[in-house]
C-alpha cells in the first residue's frame, strides 16, 4: 500500500508483541453488525504517475486562456515565485498548529510577524492568526461586536454594498444566535450608503458594517458612517481589501473597532475559491473578545525572545461551550504565504501593486466607456474595480465575451435587481495594455 511502511515481518513482530494473532483481532471490539459493506465508489488506487496523468488532464481541461477581468472579492495578482516555494517547505507545510511552542518557533514567529503586518495595514492594535476567509471573518466580527456591545443589542446594520456572499455567510452564522442582520440600502446614483440614511434608522444597534471599498468598488463615506455609528454607541466593523489599505486611509484612522477582510490578494492564488485567508484586527481593548489564535512575544527561561500562543482561554479547546468561536484549524499556510508576500513586496511594493491595479482599471473604464452605450453605473471614486452600465443585460454579454477569451466581469443583476445591465469590472497589475485593448475590442464586437 502506498504510504504504509510495514513489512510482513514488522507486522508479525508487532502482532506478537501485542499478543494477538491477526490485525483483524484488533478490531474485535467493533460489533459485527455494523461492519462496513464494501465501498463502491472508491476506485482502485493509482500510483503517483497515474494520478498525475489524471490530474493534468483535468487541470488542462480548465485552461482556456481566459483573461480575467472579474474581481468581485477575488483578485488576480502576481504571486512572487518565492512565496509558495518557501511556504510549501516541509517544515511549514507539514507542521501542526504550534501547540508545542519550543518546537514551533518558525510558525509562531511567522504568525507574530503576520499579526504585526495586518495590524499595520488596518491601523489597528492587534490582529489574529487568521480566520477561514473574508465572509466568515465578517460573520465572526458581527458576533464579536454583539458580545462586546455595551447596550447588549443583537442588531447589526449591514449595507447592501457589502459583498452579497459575505452577507449570506453572516446570515448563516448569526441566525442561530438571535443576532439580527439588518440591511441598509444604497444610493442608486452613487452606489454607496448615504450617511444621512443612518439617521432614519431608529433604535439601538450593536454595530455598523462599513465596506471600503464596497462591493461596487466605490469608496464609502467611511468616516462619516463610523462617526454616526459611534455616536449611537455602536461598534464599527470595517470590511476591507488589504490591497486597498496600502493607498486608502486605514480603518484604525477612520474609527473602526474591528477590521475584517479577505487576505487572498496577498499572495494567495484564486484557486477556484479557496483556500483563502480571513483577516481580523481590533483594538487592545477588544482583543479578549476576538476569536481565533493569537501569538505573543515573550521570553524563555534564559530571557531570550520567543513566541507562544496566548489568551487561549478565548478558544474552544479551553473554554468549550463559552468560547468566542468554535474555530480550531484556521488558514495557517495561507497566512504564511501572505506574510512572505507582504515581506517580499514590502510597503512600497504593495502601494505600487495597488496603484498599478487601480490605474489599469481606470484605463479599462476609459476604454470601455468610450464604447457607445457603455457608461459608469455610479458617480464617484472607486478603487481598482468599477461598475459599468451596458446597453443590454450583462449576462448575455459576458457569455459572448467568454467565447472571445475574456472573463468580462461580475454581472450585478445576479445580486441586485434593477442592475441587470450592470457589470463589475476589474483589471489588476497583471493586465497589459494589449489585454485592455483586447477587452475593449471584444466588448465592442459583442455589443
Amino acid at each position, binding site marked *: 500500500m502506498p504510504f504504509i511502511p510495514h513489512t510482513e515481518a514488522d507486522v508479525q513482530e508487532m502482532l506478537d508483541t501485542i499478543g494477538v494473532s491477526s490485525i483483524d483481532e484488533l478490531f474485535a471490539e467493533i460489533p459485527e453488525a455494523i461492519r462496513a459493506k464494501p465501498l463502491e465508489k472508491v476506485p482502485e488506487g493509482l500510483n503517483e504517475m497515474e494520478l498525475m496523468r489524471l490530474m493534468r488532464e483535468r487541470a488542462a481541461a480548465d485552461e482556456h486562456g481566459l483573461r480575467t477581468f472579474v474581481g468581485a472579492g477575488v483578485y488576480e495578482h502576481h504571486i512572487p515565485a518565492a512565496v509558495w516555494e*518557501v511556504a510549501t517547505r516541509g517544515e511549514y507545510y507539514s507542521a501542526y498548529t504550534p501547540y508545542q511552542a519550543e518546537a514551533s518557533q518558525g510558525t509562531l514567529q511567522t504568525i507574530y510577524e503576520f499579526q504585526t503586518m495586518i495590524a499595520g495595514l488596518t491601523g489597528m*492594535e492587534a490582529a489574529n492568526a487568521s480566520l477561514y476567509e473574508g465572509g466568515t471573518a465578517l460573520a465572526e466580527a458581527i458576533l464579536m461586536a454583539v458580545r462586546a456591545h455595551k447596550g447588549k443589542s443583537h442588531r447589526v446594520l449591514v449595507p447592501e454594498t457589502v459583498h452579497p456572499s459575505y452577507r449570506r455567510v453572516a446570515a448563516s452564522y448569526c441566525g442561530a444566535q438571535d443576532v439580527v442582520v439588518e440591511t441598509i440600502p444604497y444610493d442608486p446614483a452613487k452606489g454607496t450608503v448615504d450617511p444621512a440614511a443612518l439617521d432614519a434608522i431608529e433604535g439601538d444597534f450593536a454595530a455598523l458594517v462599513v465596506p471600503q471599498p464596497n462591493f461596487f468598488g466605490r469608496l464609502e463615506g467611511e468616516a462619516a458612517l463610523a462617526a454616526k455609528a459611534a455616536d449611537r454607541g455602536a461598534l464599527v466593523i470595517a470590511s476591507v481589501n488589504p490591497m486597498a489599505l496600502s493607498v486608502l486611509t486605514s480603518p484604525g484612522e477612520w474609527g473602526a473597532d474591528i477590521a475584517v477582510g479577505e487576505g487572498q490578494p496577498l499572495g494567495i492564488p484564486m484557486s477556484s475559491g479557496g483556500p483563502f485567508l480571513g483577516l481580523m484586527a481590533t483594538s487592545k481593548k477588544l482583543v479578549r473578545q476576538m476569536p481565533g489564535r493569537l501569538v505573543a512575544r515573550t521570553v*524563555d527561561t534564559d530571557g531570550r525572545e520567543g513566541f507562544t500562543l496566548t489568551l487561549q482561554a478565548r478558544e474552544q479547546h479551553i473554554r468549550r461551550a463559552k468560547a468566542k468561536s468554535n474555530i480550531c484549524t484556521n488558514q495557517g499556510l495561507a497566512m504564511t504565504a501572505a506574510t512572505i508576500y507582504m515581506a517580499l513586496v514590502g510597503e512600497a511594493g504593495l502601494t505600487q501593486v495597488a496603484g498599478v491595479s487601480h490605474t489599469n482599471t481606470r484605463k479599462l473604464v476609459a476604454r470601455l466607456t468610450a464604447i457607445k452605450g457603455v457608461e459608469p453605473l455610479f458617480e464617484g471614486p472607486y478603487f481598482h474595480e468599477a461598475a459599468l452600465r451596458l446597453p443590454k443585460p450583462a449576462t448575455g454579454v459576458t457569455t459572448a465575451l467568454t467565447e472571445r477569451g475574456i472573463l468580462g466581469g461580475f454581472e450585478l443583476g445576479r445580486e441586485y435587481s434593477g442592475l441587470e445591465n450592470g457589470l463589475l469590472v476589474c483589471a489588476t497589475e497583471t493586465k497589459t495594455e494589449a489585454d485592455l485593448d483586447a477587452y475593449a475590442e471584444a466588448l465592442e464586437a459583442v455589443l
Partner: protein
Amino acid sequence: MLIFDHSRDERSNKAQMPAGEADLSDLPGDRRRSSSTGLPQASEMDVVRHYTRLSQKNFAIDTHFYPLGSCTMKYNPRGSNEAAMLPGFLGRHPETPAAYSQGILSVLWDLQEMLADICGMHAVSLAPAAGAQGEYAGVAMIRSYHQAHGNHDRDEIIVPDSAHGTNPATASMGGFRTVEIQTKPDGDIDLDSLDEALSERTAGLMITNPSTLGLFERGIKEIADKVHDAGGLLYYDGANLNAILGKVRPGEMGFDVMHFNLHKTFSTPHGGGGPGAGSVGLSERLVPFAPVPLVAQAENGSYYLQYEQQRPDTIGRMTAFPANVGVLLRAYAYLRMVGREGLERIAEHAVLNSNYLLERLRRYYKVAYPDRRAMHEFILTLEDLAKSDAHVSAMDVAKRMLDFGMHAPTAYFPLSVPECFLVEPTESEAKETLDQFVAVLADIRNEAESDPEIPKNAPYSLPVKRLDDVRAAKELDLTYTGEPKAAG
C-alpha cells in the same frame, strides 16, 4: 531577528515591483493614506533567507515523528501537492462559468461521491472550511430539520465529557445548550447518564467514534437507538475516521450527519494550523438542508454548482466562495492514490501501530484504559509521576521529548483524564521509529525518577528554552513596535 529588522526605508525589491503607471490622482485626498503600513522593506534574498531559517525552527512531519493524538499527523504526499498546484487549478477565478470549469468540477463531483461512500451516507457537501465549520453546518442542519418538523423547543445538544472543545463550542454557536454526559470507567459512554440527558429538548448528540479516548464506543447502536427514539439526531465528529476507514461507516452506525477532517484523514496537510476542509456527510432526511454549493450533474452529464436557488432549504453558505478547493484537490489526490483497498490498510496499520506502542509503553507508563483495545490512538496518564515527589508533569515529559527529536503527543486532552498523553502514531510510521519512541519515553521515565530537574527544565536543545506563557498573556505583546523583548 524579526523580518522588520531587515527593513530599511528606501530599500525595495524591484523584481516584485510592477512597472506600470500608478496614478491615484482620482482618489480624494482625504481618502489617501498618509500613515505608514509598517510593512518591512527588505531585499528578496533577506526575505527568502529569513523565512527559510524560520521554517527550520519547526518540527513537522517532514522532519520529525509527530504523534499528536486526535490530529492524525501522517505523511503528506508531495504528489498531492504537485497535483493541487497545477496552474489549471490555481489560476481559475471562482466566477468562471461552469462550461469552462468541467475539469475542477469533475474532481469535486468524484470527491463528493467517494466521501459519501466512505461515510455510508446519502450525500456530501464539500462546503465547510474545516472540521469545526463542518460541525457548525451539522448543528445548523439539525436545527433546520427540527424546525422544518415544527420542533422549535429542541434546544439541547448532548456531548460526552471527553468531547473535543469544538463540539460544545459549536453547539453554542448553533444556538444550543450543551448537556454533558459521563464516560464510564471502561471508557464507554454511561448509558444511564445518556438516558438522563435525553428529553424532548434534545436536538441531537455529538460524538466521536473511536472516541477521543481512542476507544471504540461499543454501545454505539444502543446509543443511536436511544437518541433517535428521543427524537434527536446523531452527529459524528469525523476527526478519528482514520481508525475505521473501510471498516465501519458512520452511516451504518446510525449517524445522521458528520464532518470529515480532510486535513487529517486525507492528509492534505496541516500547514502549521490550516487550511483544512470539513466536508459534511448527510443522511437522506438532512439533504435538503445541506450547505451550498453542492456539485450537481446536469442531464447532459456536465457538472455545475447548486446554490440557494436550486436548494431553497439550505442552511446557506459557509464561505463567500465555494470551498477550500485546494485542500479538496489534495484530499482527492490522496484518496485516488490510496484507493479502496488502501483505505482499509490505513485503518489497520494505524490501529496496529497504536496497539504496538501501547503494549510496549505499558512497562513505563500507566495506560488510562488498560483493559480496552486501543484504536488508532491511546491514552497514557502521568498522574503518578506528577503526584510523586518528583513532581514531573506531562508537560515536563512532553518538553523533554523534544530534545530527543520527537514531537510530544497531545497533552492534557481529553480533559477527562488527568496529566494525560494522547498518542496517535498513524500508519505512516515504521516500526523502527516506534521503537525509538519507546526508547525515548523509557529514558525520560528514568530521568524523571532519578533526576527530575532534567525534564522539569527541558527543552535544552531547541531554538528557545521553555517559554514564559504567563508573561506572554500579561504583557500581551501581539505586534512588533520596534522594541526588543527585554530579558527579566
